[in-house]
């Protein structure tokens, strides 16, 4: 893709195919001989991990759909049946339910990696935006999927989220009734949520294709943020990164398996094992952990419409990030101030997640002594979240003096003077 293709069909069959559908060539140029910066660390393995996560969700989802019944009278019982009676149903459901959490864990690390190393900056703006689109679709898929087991959290989560659209002036009620297909969350809602839950992962797969395409035009960014200058800055993707990604995937799968086999309900909520009941709201509704920060932002504003706008704005701001960051330097490695603001940003996101899990009026441990409750902590952290993108990154580019950067990727790995070492003699790290 970048540079001329090095694929040489060896057999007659390969030549025949290559002249008609050069698919092997595409694979070869993208994943075998693709020139990759030689200094990629383990934060760069999450792309491969995410691809595996998506495949796992699709495969387990398709088989779950063979047993699941999208009807309010049967959905809950059919999921219980999957857990108890269907052969290996417990395993498939545990993989799918925990797989969603693992998927989000990986995507958050993948995104923070991009934020730290400046991977959203030119020439990778579209690559970043496609990533944000994937993230939005993932949130939609996970929300819709969580409704399917038709437990109390499913039902009331669906109620609260669909009612968010009711905040829109004038069109609020028509839109919510259109989403529900009725006067409230009901059978029509569950049925269409199942249809859309089945669809979205395939949309994601399509956009992942565009995402990888957009990646392979400029090539990978890397921890130094420097652009590739010579061939000595790169290694062929295979075997260096196929092996590195493979190793990371195995480690990730071990963590995944730990949850699936030993702690399958740790990340879920006990109330979802109570069947949906339109007459009783659970005392404490919380979304899945990966959506908690947005829930905290929603609650930070006393006004219904304002909360909704802010919550969507928190994702919207990611779309324009490439044009908000004014720094000439990509990687935070060489940004002495930016690095600290980034660290606080990560803390703010974790803190928002904590606020989303607690009742707003509860006092924050320790800081509660000065009267700080989770509502106000959430407000402060929300302010920082937006300030990071809208004030700090735009201004920092003018104020900050970046530190000395190495002359090239090669120098950053091998040190000065050794830069004549040939690519093949150096291992991947």
């Amino acid at each position, binding site marked *: 893709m970048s540079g001329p293709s090095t694929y040489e069909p060896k057999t007659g069959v390969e030549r025949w195919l290559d002249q008609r559908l050069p698919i092997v060539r595409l694979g070869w140029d993208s994943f075998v001989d693709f020139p990759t910066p030689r200094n990629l660390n383990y934060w760069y393995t999450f792309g491969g991990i995410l691809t595996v996560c998506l495949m796992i969700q699709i495969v387990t989802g398709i088989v779950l759909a063979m047993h699941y019944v999208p009807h309010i009278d049967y959905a809950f019982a059919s999921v219980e049946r999957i857990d108890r009676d269907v052969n290996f149903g417990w395993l498939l459901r545990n993989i799918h339910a925990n797989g969603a959490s693992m998927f989000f864990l990986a995507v958050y690390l993948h995104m923070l990696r991009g934020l730290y190393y400046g991977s959203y900056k030119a020439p990778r703006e579209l690559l970043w935006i496609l990533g944000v689109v994937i993230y939005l679709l993932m949130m939609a898929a996970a929300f819709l999927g969580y409704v399917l087991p038709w437990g109390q959290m499913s039902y009331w989560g669906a109620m609260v989220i669909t009612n968010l659209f009711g905040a829109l002036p004038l069109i609020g009620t028509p839109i919510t009734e259109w989403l529900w*297909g009725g*006067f*409230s969350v009901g059978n029509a809602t569950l049925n269409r949520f199942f249809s859309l839950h089945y669809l979205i992962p395939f949309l994601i797969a399509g956009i992942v294709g565009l995402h990888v395409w957009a990646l392979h035009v400029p090539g990978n960014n890397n921890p130094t943020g420097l652009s590739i200058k010579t061939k000595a800055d790169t290694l062929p993707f295979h075997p260096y990164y196929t092996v590195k990604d493979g190793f990371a995937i195995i480690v990730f799968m071990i963590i995944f398996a730990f949850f699936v086999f030993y702690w399958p309900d740790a990340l879920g909520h006990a109330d979802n094992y109570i069947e949906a009941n*339109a007459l009783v709201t659970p005392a404490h509704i919380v979304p899945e952990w990966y959506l908690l920060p947005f829930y905290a932002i929603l609650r930070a504003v006393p006004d219904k419409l304002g909360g909704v706008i802010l919550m969507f704005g928190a994702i919207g701001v990611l779309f324009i990030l490439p044009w908000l960051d004014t720094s000439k330097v990509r990687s935070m490695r060489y940004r002495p101030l930016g690095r600290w603001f980034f660290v606080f940003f990560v803390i703010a996101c974790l803190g928002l997640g904590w606020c989303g899990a607690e009742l707003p009026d509860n006092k924050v441990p320790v800081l509660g002594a000065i009267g700080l409750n989770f509502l106000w902590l959430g407000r402060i952290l929300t302010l920082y979240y937006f300030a990071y993108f809208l004030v700090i990154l735009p201004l920092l580019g003018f104020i900050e003096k970046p530190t000395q950067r190495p002359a090239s990727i090669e120098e950053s790995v091998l040190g000065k003077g050794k830069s004549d070492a040939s690519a093949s003699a150096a291992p991947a790290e």
Partner: protein
Amino acid sequence: MTDVNSNPETGGEEPSRRDFLYIASVGAVGVGGALTLWPFIDQMNPAADTLALSTTEVNLSALEEGAEITVMFRERPHFVRRRTAQEISEAAEVEVSRLPDQLARNANLEDSAPATDANRSTLSAGVDEGVEVDEALRSAMLVTSANCTHLGCVPTEGAGDYDAWFCPCHGSHYDTAGRIRRGPAPENLPIPPMTFISATTLRLG
């Protein structure tokens, strides 16, 4: 792209017949496309059978003072409460101008009706011809949607600042007339269309 304007006939100045054909066909495709899209959007709206399920009858004779039941009407839970004399007077004493939402939100009244206690109780309900309903019963009965006007949770009975309804989800306090008094909910609990079809039977819808 060929510049359709630069043909010898018009010299690139006047729009040609070809321009007209282009614009007309693109327009037709656009309108046709939008028309085709509509069935795919509208199918998601409530279906005819859903719209047809729209009345519920409530028997009030079994309700004692201070008792409350929850009934389903148009797929939504509704509170049906026979209020005590104290609850009624507490709600009636409040000046409408002090309420966060000053509109009755009552389907039986005009949109601009103020949120007085009388406009919230079943005094506002229709009465079928020939039916006599006890005045005290009508002012004691309160029927409202049981979905919080914030994000739809079902508030808890007998809780909150007004010992009436308190929504645990994000902390909205409603008074004994189902009016929002404190918290993020923007509106009073809405009141469905209702008619007395006998002295003790109320039909919703």
